[in-house]
């Protein structure tokens, strides 16, 4: 049964058992993150998996906050960019989203 209008910050997710994100891929990304990355324990990707899940959930939620200010029910790329811009914690993503920003805050430097 679908419950309409159950939008709330409290999501009852009993699916914490199996990790959702593939550990092998996480490990791959970790190894590519730097030149001198050390060995990674077998348990670390599990921690990463959960952290990523929380990160995505937070970013999605913040983006959604931007979306509902407009009259649309579609979460757009610009909404994500706005959320990043509005959150200091997500400063590391500024470069990534600068191209999708709704207003030209960062004028592209000429070649």
């Amino acid at each position, binding site marked *: 049964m679908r419950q309409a*209008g*159950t*939008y709330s910050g409290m*999501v009852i997710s009993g699916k*914490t*058992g199996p*990790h*959702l*994100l*593939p550990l092998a*891929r*996480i490990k*791959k*990304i*970790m190894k*590519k*993150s*730097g030149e*001198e*990355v*050390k*060995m990674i*324990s077998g*348990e*670390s990707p*599990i*921690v*990463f998996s*959960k*952290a*990523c*899940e*929380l*990160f*995505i*959930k937070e*970013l*999605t*939620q913040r*983006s*959604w906050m931007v*979306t509902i200010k407009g009259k649309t*029910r*579609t*979460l*757009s*790329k610009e*909404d*994500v*960019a706005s959320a*990043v811009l509005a959150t*200091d*914690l*997500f400063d*590391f*993503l500024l470069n*990534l*989203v600068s191209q*999708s920003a709704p207003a030209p805050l960062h004028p592209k430097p000429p*070649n």
Partner: protein
Amino acid sequence: MEPMDIVGKSKEDASLPKATMTKIIKEMLPPDVRVARDAQDLLIECCVEFINLISSESNEVCNREDKRTIAPEHVLKALQALGFGEYIEEVYAAYEQHKIETMDSLKGGKWSNGAEMTEEEAVAEQQRMFAEARARMNGGGVAPKQPDPDPSVES
């Protein structure tokens, strides 16, 4: 010249599966909400960037502690250092949960079916083992202690 095209493609070899990411994203939103495809892609890229960030910091934490392998502790410290301290509690809980589940499967689900069964079986096993041991000691001639009240026969 657009460096993003060249660099972006080579680094995006290892990305996260769209289906799984979409699932996580949609869990956070009301059922009637749509997520634009490019928004999904951007969220995935952000997640990869997040992993890169935490990885680098974890690597440094590991270095500082003079260890060779990045352990979960290092990742947790990295999260704290980068301002994601709020995640630590849930992340640690999930990690602990996984440890419990892993241990359970390693020991075999048979052992954790029910304590009562295990004790009874263990006691029965013990009695059998004692009986066998005694039988061997006595040269197999004398019958060991049995629940049936048979008189011991000496041959």
